[in-house]
């Protein structure tokens, strides 16, 4: 079992200890205390759109299967035969109303019930198949199509867990005039030999873009004649925000207006006619005020504790493998009900920056690799997360906020991380403002 860990020695208000990235005992504790007792993102409902569809997923390091049954219900079944422990599903995606373990032929429905045992004479009349159904996630939740699973039945309602993140998730989904997103256009996968929390921190980091992504922005600047890097300088009016329960956002909404193209990254990539048709659809469905709000928030970086980032047009699933290995699955999305041209432009824009050959994301991954190497240095024990502590305030919705380049999101993540790891009460405390400095 795990040694007694003092989390006050690992996570403090303005810094975290290198051990949280390099200690196998802490990784093991995370897999249990965070991934077995929390809502964990597994996929989007459209990834199992039809009856019988399934997709292999992970809860922490545990293999599972997300399925859609004949009545439309979504299940998350642990991928482990109840007989002698083999995996029962070998294909990443497919369609089947049942799963057969090919070791000894035990067969399960896509709801997880044991429905077939070959040569039952070996088990006698008392053999009760209902005792040998697949282990299932105790709870499966669906918020606007995002599917989460919890192995712990005592977690709060999904919407309560999502706290302030649900407002921004709604804006993302409402980019479709039908309020529906489709996540069936494939998946990018990259990975790195480093800890999973590097990716969770980086996805809501507004300090790094001008340095890590300078080469990409300069390319954009040439194409659109714009200095994109202004968005992340000290003069920018964007903000980083704590949305509660470890969730966060880089909020680039304040300066957007309804008559702009669909999203920052699509600027110039969509014909005026398609853009106008799309905006008309939104106005018809949502009215002016809501449409302005939706389009204003159309470029997002949202972090959902512990393992989901919603960035650009994608759902990004951060999959811990071990202390120093992480896989990342990026699923771009298309909007239901909009001109095809817009969805094609979304895919092209996503490809330009993201994925293993993208012009942006691989440079983030390079930084994760450099951090893994740098953190071999033991003499420097702490990672500094104090940026913006001197200027936090509450936004109009009551979220703790500071400048977009400040480390509000990372502090929010680690507050929840510490709570979960230390096994504290499930209600999350609102973050406390630092008292104003005395002159």
């Amino acid at each position: 079992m795990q040694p007694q860990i003092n989390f006050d020695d690992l996570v403090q208000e303005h810094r975290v200890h290198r051990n949280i990235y390099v200690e196998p005992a802490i990784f093991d504790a995370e897999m249990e205390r965070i991934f077995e007792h929390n809502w964990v993102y597994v996929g989007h409902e459209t990834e199992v759109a039809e009856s019988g569809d399934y997709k292999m997923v992970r809860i922490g390091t545990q293999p599972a299967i997300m399925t859609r049954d004949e009545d439309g219900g979504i299940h998350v079944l642990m991928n482990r035969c109840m007989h002698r422990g083999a995996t029962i599903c070998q294909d990443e995606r497919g369609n089947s109303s049942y799963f057969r373990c090919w070791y000894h032929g035990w067969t399960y429905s896509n709801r997880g019930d044991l429905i077939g045992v070959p040569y039952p004479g070996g088990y006698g009349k008392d053999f009760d198949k209902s005792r040998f159904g697949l282990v299932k996630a105790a709870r499966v939740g669906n918020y606007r199509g995002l599917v989460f699973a919890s192995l712990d039945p005592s977690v709060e309602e999904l919407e309560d867990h999502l706290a302030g993140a649900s407002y921004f998730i709604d804006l993302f989904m409402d980019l479709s005039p039908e309020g529906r997103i489709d996540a069936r256009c494939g998946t990018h996968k990259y990975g790195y030999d480093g800890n999973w929390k590097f990716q969770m921190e980086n996805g809501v980091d507004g300090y790094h873009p001008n340095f890590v992504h300078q080469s990409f922005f300069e390319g954009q600047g040439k194409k659109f004649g714009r200095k994109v890097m202004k968005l992340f300088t000290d003069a920018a009016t964007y903000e980083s925000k704590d949305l509660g329960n470890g969730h966060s956002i880089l909020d680039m909404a304040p300066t957007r207006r309804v008559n702009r193209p669909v999203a920052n990254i699509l600027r110039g990539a969509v014909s005026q006619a398609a853009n106008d048709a799309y905006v008309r659809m939104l106005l018809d469905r949502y009215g002016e005020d809501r449409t302005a709000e939706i389009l204003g928030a159309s470029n997002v970086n949202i972090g959902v504790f512990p393992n989901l980032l919603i960035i650009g047009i994608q759902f990004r699933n951060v999959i811990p493998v071990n202390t120093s290995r992480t896989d990342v699955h990026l699923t771009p999305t298309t909007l239901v009900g909009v001109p095809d041209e817009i969805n094609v432009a979304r895919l092209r824009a996503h490809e330009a920056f993201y994925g293993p050959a993208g012009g942006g994301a691989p440079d983030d991954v390079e930084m994760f690799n450099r951090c893994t190497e740098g953190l071999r240095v033991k003499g420097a024990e702490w990672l500094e997360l104090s940026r913006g502590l001197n200027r936090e305030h509450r936004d109009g919705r009551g979220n703790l906020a500071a400048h977009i380049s400040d480390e509000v999101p990372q502090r929010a993540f680690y507050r929840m991380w510490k709570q979960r790891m230390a096994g504290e009460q499930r209600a999350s405390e609102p973050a406390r403002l630092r008292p104003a400095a005395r002159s």
Partner: protein
Amino acid sequence: MASLDRSTAENILFEEARILDGRRYREWLDMLTRDVIYWLPCSGEEDTDPNRRVSIVYDDAERLLRRVERLESGMAHAQSPPSRTRRIVSNVQIINGREGEADVNSAFILYELRHGKERIFAGGCEYRFRFEGERWKVAFKKAILVNNDEVIDNLTFIV
């Protein structure tokens, strides 16, 4: 007008391999037509529509130019230091040769070294060659990596 024979096709592909291994990206761009499409799908062995399914790379000439400029900028951190590669190109076949155009298939193994880590990639390429001006150029290149639907840590060099 010209029609492509296998020996000429091989020479072009060997030259392309040499240029890409040498990271001489501008010379590589010169091998391409203005309407070129360079495509790395990530759908495993399935054929897909690149307008309905995301790809690892789906570049036209302009996006390729951005890609090369980024690699030349010195600020492409995922290629600082750059990958050292050596590719072997083989199994060259002219699938559909006609006047002025030819579809060519090939296979490759690509060794890559970066930061002391060695990786081997393998795959097949589907090309369309077109005779323009005085030489055969590449109008279409689809590189199907065997591992294209698996986790790939870094694919920022040009395959």
